[in-house]
């Protein structure tokens, strides 16, 4: 009789372990999917920026440094994004990506600030189209980032809460890193307005 109870208890424990493991796998997939969502938009943005710089080059002849800084920041962010996409949620890769994105945001901001002084550039249709698309992509990135952070938070809470925390050790369920933006200024997407 006691043997039966022990057996039943063991079976129950196994059932719970399997359910907890499945849930963790599901949550991990979810945040990885959410990251690929950001990745798509980031790629589109990295594709847009060279075109934007190319168009601006004709007008901002004396601002080569600024433009080069934008391109350089874009390249760095692009390779950081590639590394992060290979290991979504990996703390080091995410920190690199967030850092590179911050630099890129700053460089773009300076370029647009300069562009304010050139009325010809401000009325260029290609420039207007590109910057409109850039703004819209920024918004999409922000929205996808929100979804990613939500998914990561659920996953991290899930792997730390009690029964699952025992399992998280042997399933390579490492803690995923949020995409946090530290300063309030950077919370706003880059303002691009030529209207």
């Amino acid at each position, binding site marked *: 009789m006691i043997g039966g109870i022990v057996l039943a208890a063991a079976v129950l424990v196994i059932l719970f372990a399997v359910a907890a493991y499945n849930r963790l796998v599901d949550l991990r997939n979810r945040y990885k999917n959410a990251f690929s969502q950001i990745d798509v938009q980031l790629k589109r943005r990295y594709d847009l920026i060279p075109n934007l710089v190319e168009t601006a080059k004709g007008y901002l002849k004396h601002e080569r440094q600024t433009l080069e800084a934008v391109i350089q920041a874009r390249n760095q962010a692009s390779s950081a994004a590639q590394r992060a996409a290979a290991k979504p949620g990996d703390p080091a890769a995410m920190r690199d990506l967030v850092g590179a994105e911050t630099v890129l945001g700053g460089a773009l901001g300076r370029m647009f600030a300069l562009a304010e002084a050139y009325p010809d550039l401000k009325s260029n249709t290609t420039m207007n189209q590109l910057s409109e698309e850039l703004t819209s992509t920024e918004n999409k990135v922000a929205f*996808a980032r929100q979804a990613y952070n939500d998914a990561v938070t659920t996953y991290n809470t899930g792997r730390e809460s009690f029964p699952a925390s025992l399992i998280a050790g042997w399933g390579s369920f490492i803690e995923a890193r949020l995409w946090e933006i530290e300063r309030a200024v950077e919370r706003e997407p880059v303002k691009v307005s030529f209207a």
Partner: protein
Amino acid sequence: MDFFEAEHRAKRRTDWLAVLFALAVSGTVLAVYAAVRVGCQAVLKRPFDALPAEFWNFELFWRVAATTLAVILIGSLYKTWTLRASASSIAVGLGGRLVDSNTRDPHERRLLNVVEEMAIASGTPVPAVHVLPGEAGINAFAMGLRPSDSGIAVTDGCLKLLTRDELQGVVAHEFSHLLNGDSRLNMRLMALVHGILVIGLIGSTILRSIGGSRDSGTRRKVSLSGISAVLFVGASLYIIGSVGVFFARLIKAAVSRQRELLADASGVQFTRNPEGLAGALKKIGGLDQGSKLVAPRAEEASHFFFAEGIGRWTQLMSTHPPLLERIRELDPQFRGELPPVGMEPVAVEQKLPYAAMAPAGAARAIPARPREVLASIGKLDDQHIAYAQSLLARLPQRVREAVREPWVARALVLALLLDRRSETRALQLKAVLSLGDAQLADQVARAAAILDTCPLETRLPILDLSLPALRRLSPAQSQGLRAAVDALARADSRLSLFEYTLECVLRRHLGVQFGTAPRAASSADVSFDRALSLVLSMLVHSGATDAGSAARAFSAACVTLSTSRPRPRLLPRQECSLGGLEVAVSRLAATAPRLRGEILAACVAAVASDGKVTIAEGELLRAVSESLGCPMPPLLPGQQLAANEDSASAA
């Protein structure tokens, strides 16, 4: 055979299977009891010749039976739990990757287009689409345990080596699995097989533990007969388990093969193009890898595949009929020659077939006769696909792009709710603004500008197309959407029909994270007759312009109902409210499949009695069929669209 008949037959077949399985389980229980009884006899050192007379020891029997059943039950439950993983987890477990809805890869784009057409044509939301990039063979699978979680995955070979027609055939086959609810049936079968498997596992564990205790020299003095009795019981359990599993697998494989043939047949019916599906199967035959998968976990999901995913040692165990037989079924001319297939990807057709085929604006007419419409529920044919293709071709490119991106799709769906009257619209936009998200309000206004150029009958297809993107919202974002939908719907202080339908669709297909329906009253409080009267009356009123035509439409609906039940009565317009509809429909949804088929037939008759379908009727019908749990192909095409929109609105 219509959808409900098929559902009914599938249920009967499942019942029949349940009987077979019950026989297998009782056989297992008896065999286990016999083994234990003989074992006891040996331990007690009683003579065996007394056994036939004393075989039945009821107390022992009940104990053994209860234990065996408990073991099988727990084994089945365990398997059910492990199989309950979401569609995307299974695809990801096999090395799959979600195809981004914005993809620019021409092959992936083509796949998404084919899936979208099929979804619109069958009146189901677009499922999530995965690609298994490491797999060069041609295979595909569909998964869908819940409407909010259905998915289709194809291998790289399937994506790149098939022509559009062949790909369409494969996708149609997988849609048939989704519409027939085959995943659920498969899951139940696998769970039962696993339950019996556990008996064999226990037997082999007993055998192994005896072997182990013999090796360790610390063996206690146990009588030889005791050991041999345990050995005997262990070996018997092992054999019983193995034999049971063998038979259970045979049953399961036979069912699976039958479902595959059914899916092939429905796939051809969907596309009216047997060459497409046959071509895909021939390419599997001509390809070196065939349909084999290399992923280590392929065995777990083998029953979901389009063609045999792993090698089998016998035909009886395979989950799919032989390839050549399937081809012959589709192509009577087939002589067994399978030209070898190279590994170079096919070129993606630049010109989309429907762009050439469908003249702009003139969709082919689909008859609105009740019987035919009923027969079309849960399956589709080439007319529906042609209609879906021409509908998609007519959508502005900006809308097609917008539905693929969660951020824009959200705004687009909200914009669908905006009223066409400018003062109401201003009120609604103000309500969105009051939610505190200025960007969202701006985005909704922009989306509305695009939507104003689309015809009204595209509203539901646009909603269906947006669902894959909306499923990618996080729970918090999903709740934000819910709040915005509520704000928009309530801004004009009345709930219109379209608003109600939209909420129904979102609730059913986004799952719990979107939120459940507010329960005004329990569906048990309303009688079946009253519920049916209300639903039919609302449908009649939403289309009829005067009392005479309303009465005609209502009696047309009543004719289709069987006479054994009391006839529903036509309720006056004032008694029809959307709040009451909610309760009534959930009452009707709790009935048997055949009765639901009859109800839906009556609904279609009520709508189609005057030979045309108004937008309001079409949308209300969609809401009803959505709540009854059956996919409803679009009913709008080719019928004159009367513009008495929102005529069934409630205070």
